[in-house]
């Protein structure tokens, strides 16, 4: 009973000591952070960092780090924590992907780069390579063979758009001017002439073959009637 005031005083003392210690720690932390902020924005800190980065020590440290196992460890962690997936998800969710192309396209660097590429002849070489190589043929062949292309063509043919386009094309005078030009072109006239000559030649060839067969048939019978041996100087019809 007699010790109760003493115990109470000791307890109060401990509480006061804890409060004082907490207050001192908070003040020290605030002061340290304020000092750090002041240090980070100071010209001295920037100069110091620049010097450190430019120093041989920094280069050596980076080299040692790249040579060491830290690279593999970082890579493992990147894979383990799906860093790329998370970054990609953030990029896709935000406007960064839409803004980046706009920014790039708006810059003059793209125009300069395009001019330089066009002037270097790379485009011509690439086009020639594509046209001469088997890739284009493979792509076109696979595209034409695909059912998607078949469905696409079917939809285009069945759509009213094609009918309207054909209708408007047939109504235009330019089409008939173009048709007249093509019909009167020397190439078309030559093709028609060759076709006509080819047909006439085909008919004449048929007549020739039949007449020669008739010659052989008649002479065979006449010689048989006259009891003469078959002619030796008579040749069968030439194959044409």
């Amino acid at each position: 009973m007699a010790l109760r005031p003493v115990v109470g005083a000791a307890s109060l003392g401990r509480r006061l000591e804890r409060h004082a210690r907490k207050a001192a720690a908070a003040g020290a932390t605030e002061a340290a952070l304020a000092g750090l902020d002041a240090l980070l924005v100071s010209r001295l800190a920037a100069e110091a960092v620049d010097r450190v980065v430019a120093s041989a020590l920094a280069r050596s440290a980076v080299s040692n780090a790249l040579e060491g196992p830290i690279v593999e460890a970082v890579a493992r962690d990147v894979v383990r924590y799906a860093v790329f997936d998370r970054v990609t998800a953030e990029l896709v969710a935000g406007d960064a992907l839409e803004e980046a192309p706009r920014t790039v396209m708006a810059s003059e660097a793209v125009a300069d780069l395009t001019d330089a590429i066009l002037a270097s002849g790379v485009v011509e070489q690439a086009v020639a390579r594509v046209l001469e190589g088997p890739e284009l043929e493979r792509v076109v062949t696979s595209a034409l063979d695909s059912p998607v292309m078949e469905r696409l063509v079917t939809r285009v043919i069945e759509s009213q758009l094609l009918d309207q386009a054909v209708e408007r094309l047939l109504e235009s005078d330019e089409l008939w001017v173009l048709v007249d030009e093509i019909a009167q072109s020397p190439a078309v006239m030559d093709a028609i002439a060759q076709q006509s000559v080819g047909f006439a030649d085909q008919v004449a060839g048929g007549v020739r073959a039949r007449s020669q067969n008739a010659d052989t048939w008649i002479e065979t019978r006449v010689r048989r009637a006259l009891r003469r041996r078959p002619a030796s100087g008579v040749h069968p019809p030439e194959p044409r």
Partner: protein
Amino acid sequence: MSHAVRRAVQAARPEHTTPAAQAQPAEPAYQGLVTRSIAFAVDAAIINLVAMVVAIAVGLAVSVLPLPNSLDPVLVSLGGLAYLLWSTGYFVVFWSSTGETPGDRLMHIRVCTADAQQPPTPLRALVRLGALVLAAIPLFAGFLPILVDERRRGLHDMIAGTVVVGVTVATLSSNRGDAEAGRG
């Protein structure tokens, strides 16, 4: 009739056939009666078509002229003479120049001398045409030797010393090449 044919055939038969001649591989393909008749019919169609067009044109022109009727026999005679000259010139010029009339060309045949395989001279072509008329007079009996002759020669061929052979594809190409070279 068969007697005449037999004589013509015997006259046309080669005297001696040597082994060397038999060994010659490049014997031409002699053409028969049907093929030659078709070629001749095409030529006759061309000749008569041209003659009709010319006769119609000349007749129309003459009809508007105030000519006396007494001139009609003269005009008819002139027309007949023109037709004779035209048809004669047609065959003689084509046979002696290339050996092919348009009808022959259509049927891929040509007339050539029996010995040198060359187109006949104009005189020989004229003789052949005259003999052709002679062969046609006895109901076309002069053409019957074509059916039995070794070289498919008719009476007119025997008289003129000619044969009718087929034109090979190579010869046609060669002729076309020569013609194009001549044009170039």
